[in-house]
């Protein structure tokens, strides 16, 4: 959720307050620039992408939900603008990945080819995503509050980095059994929570993988 200060800024910006807009730029421009330039290594191009991101934010402001965290929302817009830029430059991962594999990967990202299925599932996808954010977010906060950082590290390496149990165990110097236990408990809770919201856990391949382990 956005901070009270950010929510106030957004209200003022919605009223057309240019000073509030100036404040928001000052607050977030530096981190967005660092985020984009980390990938582009071209200061002038990065500044252009950040500029486009702020314009994109203003254009999407009528649809912005104050319950979302502003910083995360701005990073999301910057990510999209960065991807657009990389595609224009022929540097997006799919361009590189499709070398020697024809244009199959390109076609997969063709928005027109996929439009019908995306449009059909967008709302449901958003609900599923929100369910994960609520459930996993709550678990993460509990681990942080309790200072259970080893569990947090284990789950972060398993889910965010996709490491295998044995690699996580070796890196964090814990037993593979402990890693497996942490994974099982988190996935079980997450699966239950998703089902409680009448959504299907089948659309999360990681949950299926764990169920099969």
């Amino acid at each position, binding site marked *: 959720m956005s901070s009270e200060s950010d929510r106030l800024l957004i209200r003022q910006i*919605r*009223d*057309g307050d240019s000073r509030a*807009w*100036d404040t928001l*730029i000052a607050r977030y*421009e*530096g*981190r*967005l620039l*660092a*985020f984009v330039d*980390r990938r582009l290594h071209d200061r002038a191009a990065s*500044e252009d992408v950040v500029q486009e991101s*702020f*314009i994109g934010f*203003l254009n999407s*402001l*009528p649809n912005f939900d104050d319950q979302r965290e502003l910083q*995360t929302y701005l990073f999301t817009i910057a*990510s999209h603008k*960065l*991807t657009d830029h990389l595609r224009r430059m022929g540097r997006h*991962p*799919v361009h*590189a*990945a*499709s070398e*020697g*594999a024809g244009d*199959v*990967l390109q076609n*997969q*990202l063709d928005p027109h080819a*996929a439009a019908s*299925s*995306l449009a059909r599932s967008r709302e449901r*996808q958003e609900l*599923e*995503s929100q369910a*994960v*954010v609520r459930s*996993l*977010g709550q678990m*993460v906060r509990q681990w*942080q509050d309790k*200072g259970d*950082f080893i569990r*947090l*590290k284990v789950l*972060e*390496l398993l*889910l965010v*980095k*996709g490491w*295998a149990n044995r690699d996580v165990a070796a890196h964090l110097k814990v037993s593979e059994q402990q890693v497996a236990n942490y994974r099982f408990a988190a996935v079980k809770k997450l699966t239950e929570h998703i089902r409680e919201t009448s959504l299907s856990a089948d*659309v*999360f391949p*990681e*949950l299926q993988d764990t169920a099969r382990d």
Partner: protein
Amino acid sequence: MAASIPRAQLHAYLDDALSDRETALVEQALRESDVLRQSLRAILHERDRGEHSIGAIWRRQRLSCPGREQLGSYLLQALESDLQDYIDFHLKTVACPFCQANLADLQALQQEAEPQVRQRRQRIFDSSAGYLKVGREQGGK
């Protein structure tokens, strides 16, 4: 080689969320492995079908990212040792691109000349302030 690039890394690769070193490793592996290219295509199919990656949601929604103030304290090494250690892990092992950007920004604030920063922000303001009216009109609908 294909087995050494986890699916979560391929998701992050498609989202432009890897470090330069990780990106180079993935791209090298993709050039060398048809199996890995097939895995990448499978992920694109899954995304098209509306399937999710929990890891990608975790990363994009910054579920475990420390706050800006905590990162500032991390720079000053003023945190409890276990939290300091966790943030170090999050920045270096997980290589969270958002927190790395926040940290780089905090470090730059200590070094960059103020007039330069002001000038850059003024350019953004000048190019975007005209859209404030658009936002207000759309919001009022």
